[in-house]
């Protein structure tokens, strides 16, 4: 959304002007698209509204006003525990995980120059949950080690897919297809580990098979927040490189952006975001694919659209969570099921559009 440029000081009085999409204050200039800013703000507001609604949903219903008063410390008796210890962390995890996944999806789709090149299709989600299962079942890990297992699993899978797909550079479709194969192999490994788990760990392991927001507490919030804190500034700072890479390797190289190295760094950042999201909430399918596509259609802006994609992801997960709770009447259905079905349909729609475009 923004490019930060440093301009040399000119003999002009300092001005704060908004014109032609450029915010200028004498020394610094920020390129701004009003539509994108408006869309981001709208997404943030919508997400906040949905968070409030989510927190109010459950066996003990609270109206939005009561929820807000509980946040302020002035709510009905007994609501404080439910809101602040049970439901708020769950809603925050939803927002943070959606944010991370959306951003990771935008980065991957921009790098593979293909709307279908998202980390969940390429198998990183399966890799992270396989890593988490290894930690739980084989290493008897507690919560923080499981998160670490998810992280390592995600990175290992990403490295494996990247290396397997490498042939004088990694190009779009090969990455996707190799990712599909790796997904199948990892899916069977995950199923195998799940069977080996004894009853006590099976429940814990089950929550890593589908993305779920059940029993997500403040611990998971800190995991997700940590991941975001490390990876998001990295991605935003290198946003310019991402835009340049979209123009092609040769053009990017001529403009001073080393293509393979930048691609590798951004892939690492994207994998880090995905892995932290899986460590916090398990693999939520198709989020990283759908969020950037929807964001692009809403903002109609060229380029990777990293921040709108991130906020769209946050909105989607929160909406899916609210939908799951309202429709199934309980908080127990994993949100990954809803996004799996919805995402599959969305992917089908994308393919249909692409096919129609080819026939024009």
């Amino acid at each position, binding site marked *: 959304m923004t490019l930060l440029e440093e301009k040399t000081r000119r003999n002009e009085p300092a001005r704060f002007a908004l014109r032609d999409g450029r915010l200028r204050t004498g020394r610094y200039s920020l390129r701004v698209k009003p539509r994108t800013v408006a869309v981001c703000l709208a997404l943030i507001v919508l997400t906040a509204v949905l968070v409030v609604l989510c927190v109010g949903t459950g066996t003990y219903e609270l109206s939005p006003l009561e929820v807000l008063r509980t946040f302020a410390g002035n709510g009905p008796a007994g609501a404080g525990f439910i809101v602040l210890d049970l439901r708020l962390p769950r809603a925050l995890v939803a927002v943070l995980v959606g944010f991370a996944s959306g951003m990771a999806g935008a980065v991957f789709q921009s790098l593979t120059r293909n709307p279908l090149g998202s980390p969940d299709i390429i198998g990183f989600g399966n890799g992270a949950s396989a890593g988490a299962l290894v930690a739980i079942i084989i290493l008897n890990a507690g919560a923080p080690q499981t998160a670490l297992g998810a992280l390592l699993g995600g990175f290992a899978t990403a490295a494996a897919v990247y290396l397997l797909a490498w042939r004088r550079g990694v190009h779009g479709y090969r990455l996707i297809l190799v990712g599909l194969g*790796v997904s199948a*192999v990892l899916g*069977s490994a995950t*199923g195998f580990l799940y069977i080996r788990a004894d009853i006590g760990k099976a429940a814990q392991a089950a929550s890593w098979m589908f993305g779920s927001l059940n029993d997500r507490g403040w611990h998971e919030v800190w995991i997700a927040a940590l991941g975001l804190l490390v990876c998001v500034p990295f991605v935003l700072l290198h946003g310019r490189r991402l835009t340049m890479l979209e123009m092609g390797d040769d053009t990017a190289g001529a403009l001073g952006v080393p293509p393979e190295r930048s691609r590798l760094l951004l892939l690492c950042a994207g994998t880090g975001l995905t892995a932290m999201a899986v460590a916090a909430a398990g693999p939520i399918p198709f989020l990283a694919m759908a969020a950037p596509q929807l964001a692009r259609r809403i903002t109609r802006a060229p380029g990777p659209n990293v921040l709108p994609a991130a906020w769209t992801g946050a909105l989607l997960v929160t909406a899916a969570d609210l939908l799951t709770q309202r429709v*199934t009447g309980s908080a127990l259905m994993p949100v*990954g099921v809803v996004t*799996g079905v919805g995402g599959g349909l969305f992917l089908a729609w994308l393919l249909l559009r692409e096919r129609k475009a*080819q026939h024009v």
Partner: protein
Amino acid sequence: MLTGTRLPPGETAAPPAAGRSRPPRLAGLLLGVLLLVVAALLSLAVGAERIPLGDVWSGLFAPSGSRFDNIVRELRLPRTLIGIAIGAALGLAGGVMQVLTRNPLADPGLLGVNAGASAAVVTAISVFGITSFTGYLWFALVGAAVAAVAVHALGGTRSATPVRLALAGTAVNAALFGYVNGLQLRDVSTLDSMRYWAVGTLEKRDPQLLLTALPLLVAGTLLAFALARPLGALALGEDHARALGSSVRRTRILSVTAITLLCGSATAVCGPIGFIGLMIPHAVRAFTGPDPRWMLPYCTLFAPGLLLVADVIGRIVVAPSEIQADLVTSFLGGLLFIHLVRRRKVAQL
């Protein structure tokens, strides 16, 4: 099409050999029968309990009521027979699919057909409360047909590339398996009966199901064999096929019918078992070449061996519990898939 013929600049094509020497095909059929018998014996003898072959023989033909005889007759014999029938169906369906779509990456599991059958059966159980096997079968057939048509349409009927079909299959699989998992998780009381519909297995399958499905399996097999010649013509391209006098549209419709009959019945009996239809045609093509008139019978003959071996592996790796056959075939098939993608012989990679 099936093989890439582009060469990097600077290399010239080697002159074609006078005729590729292949082992005689009839001998291959005998080898297939032999391998099938070996696999069946393995399936009868090996498991949580190792039963010596002599006891297997007496258990089959001269039962005397001993424990081994009971295991062989009651548990392993039905399981082996189901494995043979289902393996043959899946291998044959995979062969037809690969010839029809001209896509070496095609497989009923990858392209969503098994998922369609599964989702339909799960719907029948939990939404409509159907409990008869025949009911399952009809639902599975409808589900398989709908999924096959959907993936075919999404992948682009005329302009389908291997990648687009694979992605269309991914989309349909994700949506349908998500739905299956969702129904299972919602209705925990029926979880046990529905456990089989997300991952296919030969474990504890009722032989009655197989008997009910057998007419459909036989019909699908005969239809596929009858289509061998038109499919061979279609593999040359639509224009050539029409010039050779076969009706493209009819061949397509009948092939999809055959695939639906085979995969729908197989999934109704055993749950979704994938990647057999991917692996077997590739292995078999090395011997028979791409001619469907030989390839399809070979697929039918060699596929059951693979499924039985996968099942045996699943039984011995974590004895006394079991890994479902689908997990083993996914593992092996996924590795083969990656290998095929890397070989660059797939068009548009």
